């Protein structure tokens, strides 16, 4: 817990320092430092850093022009997301449809967001300009060397090389990751759906309405809270079994393959790795037909009399075994199929780690008379766990969002007979993520997709934070050694 508080403290501390530096610089700086607040280049040109000053001035003029000529047409409409609806009239001479000067809600949202990011960056540059101008002033006053432009360039290839390296990737991340995520968050507060799809229609802000309709008054559908509870339960059960079954399966498999008694271990390993080489959706679609009601597995089971046996025990009342078409049966089958898909990955990881197992400890244990199980229990497993615990946590989160396996195995195959679930477009085998997909993607319900996306993100984030902080505290290594 102390780690979290210190991390949060550190974050706010650095923001505080950022402004404290600025306050100090602005208060104590000379006229050029103060002028830097409105003319970025002033402080640098005053200290003979002409080129740097010009570059910053040009950049500032560019941002000002951007703010005057580009930004207003979008940002001014940000509050309403547009008011003029799309209309067209038929031109009787060219037979073309002529649109009016309409507002495009989505473009308004997107470009406004872009403007905000640009202005935030401009704000940070302004502050940094003042701080740096003050630093330069201090250097000049104390008679130290003031960098020329060439010196600066050399710095950026030498002591500040990391800055040079990271500039482009960071710009890329802001443009293609940060802005889309912000956009998603904003969409959660609008009524963007099939009936409000630009450019034909406008959409607008609805505040917390979508969150309200998700969590109160029955929720998104007539039986929402029932379906949400059922699906969340299965999602967690699935994530638990999917993660730990493949984890231990992988370790046992690699121990088996590493054992000196195993003949041609390389062949077995190769066969297992082939499962990885075949694209998952191909193998899953094949397996799905193997396990279909009239599939090859059912034919085999009927031939050897297994179907009749299960029927005699009253476990099934159909002429086939409903591997993927009845609740419980489907749940177990999905977890088993996932073991088949997931074990090879874990086996590869475990093999790598087992090879690095300190042999002195194994030997001393053997001399002390420990049997194989004791060696596994007290040496192999603790070592494995210490190394692989972080992947265990990420695997768990990954399985919460394991869309592929569930969707490919059950879509168009599993039909729920639970009307309450069906009324929420759900079925027993759905995870939160596949349910989200059914609820929104098929119906262009972008606003609720954004809301549920945020909720799933929060669930995963909270879980990951807790798991990392409480399950894998940093002193494990010390305990083991």
């Amino acid at each position, binding site marked *: 817990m102390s780690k979290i508080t210190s991390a949060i403290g550190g974050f706010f501390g650095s923001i505080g320092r950022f402004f404290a530096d600025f306050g100090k610089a602005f208060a104590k700086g000379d006229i050029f430092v103060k002028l830097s607040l409105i003319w970025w280049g002033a402080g640098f040109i005053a200290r003979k850093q002409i080129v740097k000053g010009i570059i910053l001035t040009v950049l500032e003029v560019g941002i000002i022009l951007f703010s005057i000529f580009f930004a207003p047409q979008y940002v001014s409409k940000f509050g309403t997301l547009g008011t003029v609806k799309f209309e067209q009239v*038929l031109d009787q001479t060219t*037979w073309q*449809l002529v649109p009016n000067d309409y507002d495009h809600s989505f473009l308004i949202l997107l470009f406004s967001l872009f403007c905000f990011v640009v202005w935030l960056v401009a704000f940070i540059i302004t502050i940094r300009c003042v701080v740096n101008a003050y630093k330069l002033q201090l250097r000049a006053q104390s008679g130290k060397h003031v960098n020329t432009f060439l010196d600066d360039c050399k710095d950026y290839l030498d002591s500040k090389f990391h800055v040079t390296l990271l500039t*482009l*990737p960071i710009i890329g991340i802001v*443009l293609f990751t940060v802005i889309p995520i912000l956009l998603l968050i904003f969409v959660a507060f609008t009524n963007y759906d099939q009936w409000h799809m630009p450019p034909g229609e406008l959409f607008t802000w609805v505040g917390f309405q979508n969150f309200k309709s998700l969590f109160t008054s029955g929720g998104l559908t007539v039986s929402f809270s029932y379906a949400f509870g059922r699906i969340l339960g299965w999602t967690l059960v699935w994530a638990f079994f999917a993660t730990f079954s493949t984890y231990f399966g992988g370790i046992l498999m690699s121990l088996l393959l590493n054992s000196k008694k195993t003949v041609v271990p390389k062949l077995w390993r190769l066969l297992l790795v082939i499962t990885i080489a075949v694209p998952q959706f191909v193998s899953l679609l094949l397996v799905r037909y193997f396990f279909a009601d*009239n599939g090859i597995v059912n034919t085999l089971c009927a031939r050897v009399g297994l179907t009749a046996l299960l029927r005699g025990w009253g476990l099934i009342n159909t002429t086939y075994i409903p591997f993927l078409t009845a609740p419980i049966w489907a749940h177990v089958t999905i977890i088993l199929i996932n073991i088949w898909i997931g074990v090879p990955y874990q086996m590869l990881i475990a093999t790598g780690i087992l090879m690095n197992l300190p042999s002195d400890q194994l030997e001393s244990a053997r001399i002390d008379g420990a049997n194989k199980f004791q060696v596994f229990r007290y040496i192999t497993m603790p070592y494995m766990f210490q190394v692989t615990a972080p992947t265990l946590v990420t695997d768990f989160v990954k399985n919460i969002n394991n869309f592929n396996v569930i969707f490919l195995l059950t879509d168009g195959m599993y039909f729920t*007979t*639970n009307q309450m679930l069906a009324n929420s477009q759900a079925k027993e085998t759905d995870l939160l993520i596949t349910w989200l997909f059914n609820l929104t993607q098929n*119906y262009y319900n972008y606003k609720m997709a954004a809301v549920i996306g945020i909720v799933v993100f929060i669930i995963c984030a909270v879980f990951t934070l807790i798991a990392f902080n409480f399950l894998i505290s940093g002193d494990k290594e010390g305990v083991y050694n």
Partner: protein
Amino acid sequence: MKKLVALALCLVLALGLVACGGDSNSNNSNTNTPSDNNTPSDNNPPADNNPPADNNPPADNNPPASGDAIALTVWGGEEDQALLGELVEEFKAAHPDQTFNIQVGVESESTAKDTILTDPQAAADVFAFASDQLDSLVNAKAIQSLDDMDAALQALAGVSVADVKTANSASSVEAASRNGVLYAFPMTAGNNYFLAYDPDFLNEDQVKTWDGLLEAAAAQGKKVAMTIASGWYNASFFYSAGFTTGLNEDGTTSADWNGTSATGIKGVDVVKAMQAIASSPAFFSTNDLPAAITGGDVIAVVDGCWEDKALKEGFGDDYAATTLPTFTLNGQQVQQYCVSGFKFVGVNPYSKQAGWAVALAQFITNEESQVKRFEQRKQGPTNVNAAANPAVQENVLIAASSAQDAYGVVQLVGDNYWSPTESFGAQIAQGTIGSDDAAIQSALDDLIAGITAPLA
């Protein structure tokens, strides 16, 4: 040196990001997912998670002055490409004083909606789609009202919207209209279902009633297949008894199945009739009809024109098709209805050349084009004159389909309709509802609560 390598790597990474995030408008449209006309477009909402984003060139942004080439893009199914190319050439020939630059792209009728709604402004000027997608397109204003284009249609194609309405069958025009406004040109009929059977095992009398059909199949140890876990198929029993569904302004569905129909039949009795059919040992409920047909045990199936290949394989080249049988409801025989389905051609409201787009859409769906479509693609015409052609009537599937269309219902439903009805069908197939009136009534009430639920 190391630094150079690091810098180069960073550049590559950044450029990669730019390339990925940037516009992926590649040159032509032929990279779209192949169409699959083998399914009744989407009786379930489409499961296609990644609609091919925008690999089609947007329409020309600069409307040319009159006399310049008119640039248009047409989307049609993969199997229709050759025919469309031919029709486009004929269209050009029919307007010799105007130059055109018309591109034909691949977009399956069953997934057109998904691609168009991703970005309507980048979609084709003229596109073919299955009739059940009309509501989504109208909701999103991604399809042009043809009533508003009447003047252009008369000036450029020489026919009025009223002419189009009279030239095509009434049910197809009804399905292509919303609130009395025509939104699309009917192109093909036959997206409905009927009974196909193997005449080696069944005779014409036996296929007239479900009772006779199931009895004959059971006596021979064979089965009759139908997809009952689907609101597209199982609604037919309710429609047969006079029940209705409707689509409200706000996108919700209205349905009266848990009450009494206009013809005085109770919903509970319809469910009992369905249970009687589904509980027969000869009845086989499946969502994979082609596999069932070719599997060997099935000798009759409720299916549509798209199944020609599987039917030949399963039932032999001499397979027969006819209207759906009657079923026993309250001791009386009631004709089973079907849900009518069509393929339409629509016009993009954001087309830069909307007038010519409408003229082209009309041309590829007129009587001559529909006759051609039947000859080359074996697709049933909606055009009344084309349908009267003796060659059309001789085609087993199309004849059965158009005979069944007399008992066809245009299914108007909203998004919340599909999942509850699918589950209800599954419950009937697996016999989980129970047979007493109270249990059936409460199951029906639950079903209707789901169907009519408000949309968030």
